[in-house]
């Protein structure tokens, strides 16, 4: 399945209901979303949605073509994962008594995470990275007892001079 993973970056009009249109399209066409992140861009009229999903080539094409038909969608790009920087932010609260605390601090250092809150029997950590790194961090912490966890979903940007807003959707076949 891992080979079927893909990442879409979508520029949309920053208007009420656009996220519903995009996510609704996925639901209606039985497209599964692994993660979705959205936020305003430097142009306040435009938002960028990054969608991580999985499926074969035919499925990918359909997702792109169907998204392109939405009136509020300006650009849909299937990101080339070898030329894209992907990041995800996670906040995680893990149970930590005096005994286990040091081990967790060690992991925080190795994973280049950051402790952001400390309580008598738990601590909260912030970590940024590729989703696989976050997954590894979760697995390491699981035995200590994870109390709470939240992830933002993948966000991505192309390397080098690749600028999404300058891509025109293919007019020719």
């Amino acid at each position, binding site marked *: 399945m891992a080979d079927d993973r893909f990442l879409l970056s979508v520029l949309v009009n920053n208007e009420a*209901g656009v996220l*519903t*249109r995009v996510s*609704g*399209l996925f639901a*209606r066409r039985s497209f599964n979303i692994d993660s979705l992140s959205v936020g305003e861009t430097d142009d306040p009229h435009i938002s960028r949605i990054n969608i991580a999903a999985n499926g074969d080539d*035919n499925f990918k*094409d*359909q997702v792109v*073509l*169907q998204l*392109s*038909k*939405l*009136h*509020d969608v300006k650009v849909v790009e299937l990101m080339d994962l070898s030329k894209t920087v992907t990041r995800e932010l996670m906040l995680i609260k893990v149970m930590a008594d005096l005994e286990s605390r040091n081990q967790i601090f060690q992991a925080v250092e190795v994973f280049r995470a950051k402790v952001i809150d400390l309580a008598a029997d738990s601590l909260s950590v912030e970590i940024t990275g590729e989703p696989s790194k976050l997954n590894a961090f979760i697995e390491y912490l699981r035995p200590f007892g994870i109390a709470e966890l939240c992830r933002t979903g993948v966000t991505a940007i192309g390397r080098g001079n690749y600028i999404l807003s300058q891509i025109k959707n293919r*007019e*020719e*076949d």
Partner: protein
Amino acid sequence: MKLTGAQILVETLIEQGVDTVFGYPGGSVLHIYDELYKSCGRIRHIITCHEQGAAHAADGYARATGKTGVVIATSGPGATNLVTGIATAYLDSTPMVAFTGNVARALIGKDSFQEVDICGITMPITKHNYIVKDIGRLADIIREAFEIANSGRPGPVLIDIPKDIQAAETDFEHKPPAEKAPGRKPSDKSIANAVELIARSKKPFIYAGGGVVNSGASKELVEFAEALGAPVGTSMMGLTAMEYDHPLFLGMTGMHGRYAASKVMSLSDLIIAVGTRFSDRATGNKTEFSRDRKILHIDIDPAEIGKNIPAYVSLVGDVKEILGRLLAEKIKPSSKAWRNEVAELKNAPDNHLGMAEGKLTPEAFIKAVKARMPYEGIVATDVGQHQLWTAQYYHFRRPRSLITSGGLGTMGFGMGSAIGACIGSGDVKTVLFTSDGSFHMNMNEMATAASYRLPLVIAVLNNNALGMVRQWQTIFYECRYSNTTLNRKTDFVAAAKAFGIEGLLCDSLEKMPEVLDAAFACEGPVLVEVKIDSDEKVLPMIPPGGTIHDIILKG
């Protein structure tokens, strides 16, 4: 010039060339209806009995004329009653703009009286929809809605206008209607690829869909088929794309298609699919459909390429224009051997399944109606057995002369759509083939037909059953007729009279000519109840997911 939102709505509709709208008034559209009243007939408003009927009427109007259908409904239940009509238009790619009133902006989100989120509800069944929250945007939103409804693959757009926006004032200036944005065009290279694919084919088959009708490409389709000497089959939506009597026309393919059309398609080595989306009802088994043959897919919607059936070569753009470009290329006619094989299959006995002679059958009745219809006449149907019988036996002559719900298969579509089509075509003779099942759903619209004195013949093929479902129960459920043998007590002739329209009974083959002559002599609406056998079936039938090898020819 300062105008209110309701005035802007009327002015912008006129700007878009709209002269007829369908609808139903209510609390949240009072401002709009007040302006329609004051506009002194600049826009003709047709009131139906139910918003669903109005939506189907706008749809039928658009299908018959090629213009954009417009429907207006109030908030809440008025808006939700449009939903089936909008979905029907969406599935069959009909250009439509639906206006709904909504409660005032300050009341939105409070579960106010007759408030629903109609934009949320119709998101998956419209090309786009709007809720207008700024009066300054209203005129441009309406203009944009018409453009979206008509550009590329047509479809419905909904505009929800809160009541206070209808009353608010702003500056307004007329703008000429926007020119159609240029759509996608295939590259010369793709055209060359297609031409080469066609040249290499020994057994080409043309499969035409509703896109040919929508694009107005019937003439090009016929010329292309003649140049290539290729047989043509159609989906139900494409049925009027080619005259039935044309020697190359084989009829409808698919689940209830004509034997020759399905058989020739299965023998072909190339399917040239024009303006079609390969519905499951048309393809049957998808793997077998494209096995041993290549597909050249021509459609205006890029998302249809490869969605249901993989294409070997695809051409995305307006079908009329693309066929024109292909015609400009050198196209060699297909081999004589293939044409002979096709001609032989076209005459095969399995094409002439015809129903029993000497009794009143759907076939006999539909053919007798056809014999009385003018060339300009329009046929509408509801959904079920009568719809397929009409598709099989009516033998259409002209594009846009069949108004039927293909994609959504909406029972209850008939009355509204027949009314809209009839009005849109300037009151030409219109026949609705319906049935006791479908007609019971929206027979209220007889009142509309009566009010406007429409030249509408409503043929209710009464088999006392939900025939199509019953047929499936016969074939696939060992004759367990769960809730399909209705034997309702409705007296359709008396019901027609109660609604103020003529009612006639046709219960035998002997009476049929006289009854039909009388029906066609009526200037206004008339209902003919036609008594038919409950066990009459739609044949042939290829079971869902099946192939030509599974075809059922006998009941």
